[in-house]
């Protein structure tokens, strides 16, 4: 299956964006982001804490809807999903 991963702001600078991934069936949202972010230590450390969990300020969306961080370890990604990961918003 194909899942698009989008990072924004500082996370984008560290990891890139609009990354097309091909996870296996049964891959969780947490596992997918960890795998992709894991290729660059600085980017991984910006998003995950020392226990390998999302840092509390990180915002994760699946298809434009926010996913609670506690659910990211159980929510499975599906073909065609767009996953977005970003720091707190600062517009206006």
């Amino acid at each position, binding site marked *: 299956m194909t899942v698009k991963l*989008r990072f*924004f*702001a*500082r996370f*984008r600078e560290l990891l890139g964006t609009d990354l097309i991934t091909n996870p296996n069936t049964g891959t969780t949202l947490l596992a997918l982001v960890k795998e992709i972010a894991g290729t660059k230590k600085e980017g991984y450390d910006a998003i995950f804490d020392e226990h390998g969990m999302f840092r509390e*300020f990180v*915002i994760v*969306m699946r298809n*434009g*809807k*926010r996913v*609670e961080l506690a659910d990211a370890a159980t929510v499975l990604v599906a073909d065609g999903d767009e996953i*977005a990961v*970003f*720091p*707190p*918003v*600062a*517009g*206006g």
Partner: protein
Amino acid sequence: MIRIQTDDVDIGALITAAKTPETGAVVVFDGIVRNDGITEMELEAYEDVAVPELEKIAMAATEQFHLQHVDIVHRIGRLSVGENILIIVVSAGHRPDAYAGSRYIIEEIKKSVPVWKKELTKDGGRWVPGEHGHGSGHH
């Protein structure tokens, strides 16, 4: 008009378009790049989410404050000191609603619309920290 765009906008034209025969007040909010020792500001948005979120905020403000017209234009890209970042134009029958509606819209944008700002300086840049504990969408 609810937009995220790189171009600036003609605020005078927005004010003219916001008026109806029943309008008693138009309030304009213009957020501007301030010189905090920076050279430029770079803005980015998650547009697929930010535009619907702006539309949601405009609808909520319209209903809550009896607004007659709402424009929100949030600019992205590289902006220099003095340039407009965010323009909000609202019209209402009376000034309390126009002021309160405008204030509501800017505060909600700060909380929930996925836009980020980077201050560019001679030595590099710095992402403006967002409001911790908030973020796009609702709990």
